């Protein structure tokens, strides 16, 4: 079947369930594409070819025997190498954990397997998830599949997840998001990435960066696929005390395509006004498209978000150092030097800073809640600029020049502080052919409305359906 690697997870599940295609063929097609392109893209750290084919044969046998099938039966996916996989190395993108082989799966790994999904491999990432550019000195820098002439950043820290899904090396993947690490690569690589509400998805068996900021979520090419994965993964887990007992709906049911009367707040000021002209016009055009489809769009500002950066420094810095302190003392030289620097700097953050930051967090959360009291979702750019080149150190934003790193996380990190669900999806392309991403922010545990809005936009447009040309 032509171009099976571009089929969505939803479509693959249907093709497999109706016996139009074998899970073995689906896995083989993806393994072949990985073999052909991943030396250049460096999206995978570990490829689980034998395991994936064995699982695919079992899936085929179950299908032929008429056994009940899970919603992801036979559908392959990739896992950011932060998620424990029993018997398979989970490196955290590090040299320090290069030989770490967990004996148990992370909860979400197990839940996806129970839903029938097949693991293709463990995906590249920034070491210990601590960075937004997508660089890794141990396993190679993942390469953005758009603009083959220039090595552009994928964004991070879920760099391999972004590159693999965008390039057809996996139909879907899991990432994690502590300051933007699902949404930034989703934006720069032109795919869909969902940071659910904090507590919606279990973090048990996922290597932490910052416990109170980490979020687990899907990275796919469509909102419908994000809904499919979320439904399979979400829900209370006794092994994660922060997970919510709220029931998990079937998020696919919410995807009606209807946005009539949906109240959308377009975020000006800190967000839109700071974006580059092409990003700004992409998001504004998206707002007009939603309005034309019946949404009610107004403009809103969030006064407290300018305080996000120092609060994020204090919280992520303190929590990450707490987790890494012993290893940093014993093996500082084995860290990515950039990651080691960030960890060391956190030694100068005091407890008083940490508590003050958590108070600022309360202000930001209240600010977002207030904006959503009279609206269903908020709309903003995900990143202020498209994918920078690898050697770019500075970008020019709407409000002046900025180093690349703080620019990448500027629009995403407030919602890690607040915990609201956010979906990033492509809303346009620059004149140079680079994807532009926008984020849809919803009320806590209202992933259904966020995904409905994202899916409706994807029914109106085809940005999510464009494909990079690989060499």
């Amino acid at each position, binding site marked *: 079947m032509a171009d099976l690697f571009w089929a969505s997870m939803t479509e693959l599940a249907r093709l497999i369930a109706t016996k139009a295609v074998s899970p073995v063929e689906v896995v083989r097609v993806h393994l072949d594409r990985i073999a052909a392109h991943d030396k250049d893209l460096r999206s995978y750290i570990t490829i689980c070819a034998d395991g994936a084919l064995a699982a695919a044969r079992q899936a085929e046998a179950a299908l032929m025997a008429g056994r009940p099938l899970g919603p992801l039966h036979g559908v392959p996916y990739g896992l950011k190498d932060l998620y424990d996989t029993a018997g398979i190395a989970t490196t955290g993108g590090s040299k320090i954990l290069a030989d770490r082989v967990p004996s148990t799966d992370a909860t979400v790994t197990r839940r996806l397997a129970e839903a029938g999904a097949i693991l293709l491999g463990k995906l590249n990432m920034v070491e210990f998830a601590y960075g937004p550019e997508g660089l890794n000195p141990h396993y190679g820098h993942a390469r953005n599949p758009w603009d083959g002439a220039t090595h552009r950043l994928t964004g991070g820290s879920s760099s391999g997840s972004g590159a693999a899904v965008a390039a057809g090396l996996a139909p879907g993947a899991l990432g994690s998001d502590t300051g933007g690490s699902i949404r930034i690569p989703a934006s720069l690589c032109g795919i869909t990435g969902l940071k659910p509400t904090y507590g919606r998805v279990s973090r048990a068996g996922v290597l932490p960066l910052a416990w109170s900021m980490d979020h687990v979520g899907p990275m796919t090419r469509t909102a419908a696929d994000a809904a499919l994965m979320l439904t399979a993964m979400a829900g209370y887990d006794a092994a994660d005390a922060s997970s919510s007992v709220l029931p998990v709906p079937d998020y696919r049911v919410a995807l009606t395509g209807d946005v009539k009367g949906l109240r959308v707040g377009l975020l000006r000021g800190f967000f839109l006004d700071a974006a580059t002209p092409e990003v700004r016009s992409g998001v504004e055009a998206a707002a007009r498209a939603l309005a034309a489809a019946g949404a009610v769009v107004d403009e809103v500002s969030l006064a407290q978000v300018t305080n996000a950066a120092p609060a994020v*420094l204090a919280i992520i810095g303190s929590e990450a150092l707490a987790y890494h302190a012993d290893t940093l003392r014993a093996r500082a030289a084995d860290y990515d030097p950039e990651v080691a620097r960030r960890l060391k700097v956190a030694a100068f953050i005091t407890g008083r800073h940490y508590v003050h930051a958590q108070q600022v967090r309360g202000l930001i959360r209240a600010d977002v809640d207030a904006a959503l009291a009279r609206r269903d979702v908020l709309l903003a750019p995900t990143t202020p600029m498209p994918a920078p080149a690898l050697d770019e150190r500075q970008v020019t934003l709407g409000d002046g020049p900025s180093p690349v790193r703080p620019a990448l996380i500027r629009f995403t990190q407030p919602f890690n502080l607040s915990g609201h669900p956010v979906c990033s999806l492509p809303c346009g392309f620059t004149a140079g052919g680079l994807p532009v991403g926008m984020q849809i922010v919803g009320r806590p545990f209202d992933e259904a409305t966020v995904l409905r809005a994202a899916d409706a936009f994807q029914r109106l447009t085809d940005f999510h359906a464009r494909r990079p040309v690989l060499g």
Partner: protein
Amino acid sequence: MLPAMTSHPIDLDTLRHGARLAGFAWSDAELEEIRPQVEAALRLLRALEAIPVGDTGPTTHYRTV
């Protein structure tokens, strides 16, 4: 609070003191290497200290209903 939290730039003695308080025995070379980032962080933390928070309680977890 470290004196250097309110002064800028930060000297090596203060870097050594801060690292020791945090439980790390970094060499002078290691401390010099991170000095620019520490100074940048301290500027950001001074901005944090200036944000009025009133009676807002610290938020460490969300509405994990």
